[in-house]
């Protein structure tokens, strides 16, 4: 009798896939031809989409626990995956909540948006649970293809289509890198399974050059996905061109997923090659921090500035990877958890920057915000201080654990460059605060009152960032347990 595969660990993903397809059917059969119908269909799928993601999060908790394999090791469900999946789902939920109002204002509301977000989320969850180079690639591509479409979602806007095309061309190249690297790794280790690769690599006395080249190609592809320097070029353009809710989504969920995947691939199958890849990670980490800090200073568009800011943040997260041990991974996970809330909150503020029908994106438009919108200005100031890593805000703790890990691993130079880059980046974060608080308001204030969805997301993320210091222990303990499962 054929054995029934154990699909229990994959339940959240299966649920998401089925739900997304049902929502697609639902959307199609709405027969939305009138403007009212289009609006109704998009609201319905968006609402149900949030619900779906929320249920998926509950399912993730249900199947969490010890490390479980499914489909002969293609799929791994361990505490690490659980931690990251929860983050991804939180990020997706908040992005989706924020998006609807914005899309309606821009006349770009279509029911496919929520479905694409769900499919992208599904791809990310597959990525972080990948236990095999093939499932890794599958997850990565499902995610990427959904994101290409999302970037071009505002199809009447040339910038958006341009962003989508640019992202697609460069993203496909990066996927090619990953695929080519994977094939080399397969060729020189004879397997695509992570645990078997790890065992093979550890057993080899001399690592074959082909395997190293394969590893470098995989790393280049992954560095592209996390937008680390020197593979960051697409980021500012795509962030600027994509519709703002999509940028918000890009800035958090895929980043978290890609960094988590990076961690899993590096410390999993290639864990014993740490001496080979550590220098590479150190270099891209330093470059990312430096470029993120210096290039952001000159930006006038806030979305572009946030793109460079996110490149810088990836640089910090990569310090944790460069350390390559449990403390480092713990640091990265804590960092990512805090990063999600800071960024979603900031993008909620960016989405609230509206004058009449016009969405504004210049940093100077924030002038005098402290007088016209004191609440929003205060929350945005909190996010900016937090990103600069000023205690007692949450961003400080993110950096704290990363640097702690770096110091413990005696990567002193990396730590020193990191903190100095954070001082430089403080300069441009302060600029936002300066414009909001020290400058006078422009000709007309930004639109008020803020939509309820934005206020809600701002409140949640603001509270998390401000009050994180009160009870940091649970998150840190959880991240520690998640990191331990990788080793």
């Amino acid at each position: 009798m054929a054995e029934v595969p154990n699909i229990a660990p994959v339940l959240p993903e299966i649920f998401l896939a089925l739900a997304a397809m049902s929502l697609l059917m639902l959307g199609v059969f709405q027969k939305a031809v009138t403007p009212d119908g289009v609006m109704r269909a998009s609201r319905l799928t968006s609402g149900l989409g949030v619900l779906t993601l929320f249920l998926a999060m509950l399912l993730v908790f249900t199947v969490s626990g010890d490390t479980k394999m499914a489909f002969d090791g293609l799929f791994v469900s361990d505490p690490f995956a659980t931690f990251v999946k929860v983050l991804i789902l939180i990020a997706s939920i908040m992005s989706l909540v924020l998006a609807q109002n914005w899309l309606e204002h821009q006349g770009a509301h279509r029911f496919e948006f929520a479905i694409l977000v769900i499919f992208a989320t599904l791809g990310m969850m597959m990525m972080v649970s990948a236990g095999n180079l093939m499932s890794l690639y599958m997850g990565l591509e499902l995610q990427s293809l959904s994101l290409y479409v999302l970037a071009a979602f505002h199809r009447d806007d040339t910038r958006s289509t341009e962003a989508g095309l640019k992202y697609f061309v460069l993203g496909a190249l990066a996927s090619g890198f990953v695929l080519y690297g994977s094939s080399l790794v397969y060729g020189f280790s004879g397997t695509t399974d992570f645990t078997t690769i790890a065992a093979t690599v550890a057993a080899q006395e001399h690592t074959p050059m082909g395997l190293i080249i394969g590893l470098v190609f995989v790393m280049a592809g992954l560095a592209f996905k996390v937008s680390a320097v020197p593979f960051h070029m697409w980021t500012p353009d795509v962030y600027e061109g994509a519709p703002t809710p999509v940028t918000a989504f890009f800035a958090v969920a895929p980043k978290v997923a890609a960094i988590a995947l990076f961690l899993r691939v590096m410390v999993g199958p290639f864990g014993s090659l740490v001496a080979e890849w550590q220098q590479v990670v150190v270099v891209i980490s330093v470059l990312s921090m430096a470029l993120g800090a210096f290039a952001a200073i000159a930006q006038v568009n806030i979305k572009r500035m946030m793109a460079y800011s996110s490149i810088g943040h990836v640089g910090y997260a990569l310090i944790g990877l460069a350390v390559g041990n449990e403390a480092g991974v713990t640091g990265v996970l804590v960092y990512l958890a805090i990063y999600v809330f800071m960024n979603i909150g900031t993008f909620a503020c960016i989405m609230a920057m509206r004058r009449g029908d016009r969405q504004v994106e210049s940093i100077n438009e924030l002038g005098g915000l402290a007088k016209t919108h004191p609440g929003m200005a205060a929350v945005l100031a909190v996010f900016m201080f937090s990103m600069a890593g000023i205690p007692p805000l949450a961003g400080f703790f993110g950096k704290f654990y990363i640097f702690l890990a770096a110091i413990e691993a005696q990567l002193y130079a990396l730590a020193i460059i990191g903190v100095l880059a954070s001082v430089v980046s403080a300069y441009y974060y302060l600029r936002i605060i300066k414009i909001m608080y020290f400058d006078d308001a422009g000709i007309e204030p930004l639109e008020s009152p803020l939509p309820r969805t934005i206020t809600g997301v701002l409140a949640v993320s603001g509270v998390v960032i401000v009050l994180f210091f009160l009870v940091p222990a649970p998150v840190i303990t959880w991240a520690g347990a998640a990191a331990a499962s990788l080793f």
Partner: protein
Amino acid sequence: MFGFEHLLSVLIFLPLAGAGFILVIPGDDEVAVRNARRTALFASSFTFVMSLFLWFGFDTTTADFQFVEKAEWIPTYNITYHLGVDGISMLFVMLTTLLTPICVLASWDSIKSRVKEYMIAFLILETMMVGMFCALDMVIFYIFFEAVLIPMFLIIGVWGGQRRVYASYKLFLYTLAGSVLMLLAILVMYRQAGTTDIPTLMATRFDPNLQIWLWLAFFASFAVKVPMWPVHTWLPDAHVEAPTAGSVILAGVLLKFGGYGFIRFSLPMFPDASVYFTPLIYGLSIVAVIYTSLVALVQHDMKKLIAYSSIAHMGFVTAGTFTMTTQGVEGAVYQMLSHGVVSAALFLCVGVIYDRLHTREISAYGGLVHKMPTYAFVFMLFMMASVGLPGTGGFVGEFLVLAGLFKANTWVAAFVATGVILGAAYMLYLYRRVVFGALEKDEVKKMLDMSPREIAVFAPLIVLTVWMGIYPASFLDVMHVSVDNLLGQVQIALDASKAAVVAGH
């Protein structure tokens, strides 16, 4: 009894609670603004009253940390919420709780826009400052130490003068650049000792070679805060642009972070490195005392002049601290306390006439004594205290520092002592130009003498300055046991490493 077990937490979070109350005051009208001012005054005064329990409940016969609180915070990393005060930090807590209500009172009429936010910023600032002095865990210390930047940045940037943006950026980035290196040093210490608990770290012996690096990292942070020449340039800018109360708190408390840090961390934790770097500190202190005094002589702006005088006075503090003699360290602490009171009062003095004429140019004034006799008296008192006239707080500190310095190094003492003369020169010159001379300018003729509110602001500071000058024992007794214990520990550590060197040969 409640309040005594958790007295320090109460002192830290009471102002924060006050800030929370102000936050929920609705509206922006006259009534709301008045309520915000009153709430801030009440919260900070109540904190001061509570801190009196600290003063009276303090046991001066022990060097142990008192009013200790310890609670788990991040157990995985062995970081605890650990608070406590000894004879040194207790005095700084008192200074902070005293100056904050005075600042609130001093801003009563001069701050007209965004009063609620201003008061919230000040109360948060008080929370951070008190927390910094009470912290007995490096991470807690660092959090409070750094967090001070947020309210200070906003206070200068929002309510400051013409070049406020430049000044606030400079303050923020200078201090941040110094402190992040200290953060790394803290992490290295954690890696070595496995804890961030300050009392434990004080008893830990770090490798002398490592001490050099750790000392330098801490120095980067504290030297900016003190500030020491050549990283002092942020201070004149920050002082000039800050609103009066901002200058008061900056000179009164924030500058003490650096000196306190040297005494609390650099000396006991890195004794070998401290000895090694003493010549550097002496050199920088001498430059600070002489050079900044000369710079102060040629200033046209009153606030800038007092800012430079602060740097010179802080030169005494750093020099005194690194003599590692009882007189020197006690003198340094005393000098910080009296400077906290006196420079705060001097900035308030500038604020009084600035509120009337809206200029800080010395040449705009002259002959004030004819129109404002009370003011002339108050200003004279603090001017004399700043110069170090016997009978004022300033004298005791400078005298003790010089006594300690003579023991340690006569040449350094001789150079630093010239600061006293130069101090007299620039302060008297300032006073002559502002208060004496002919009453010629029309605007000055219209100025009124101090109001009862302003007198109320100065009264506690006058009492304190004279008290510190006439009966210093009430403050020296508090710190004496702690300072002795500290220096004893340093000596033991130094002897131990000397013995190790001898054994090695």
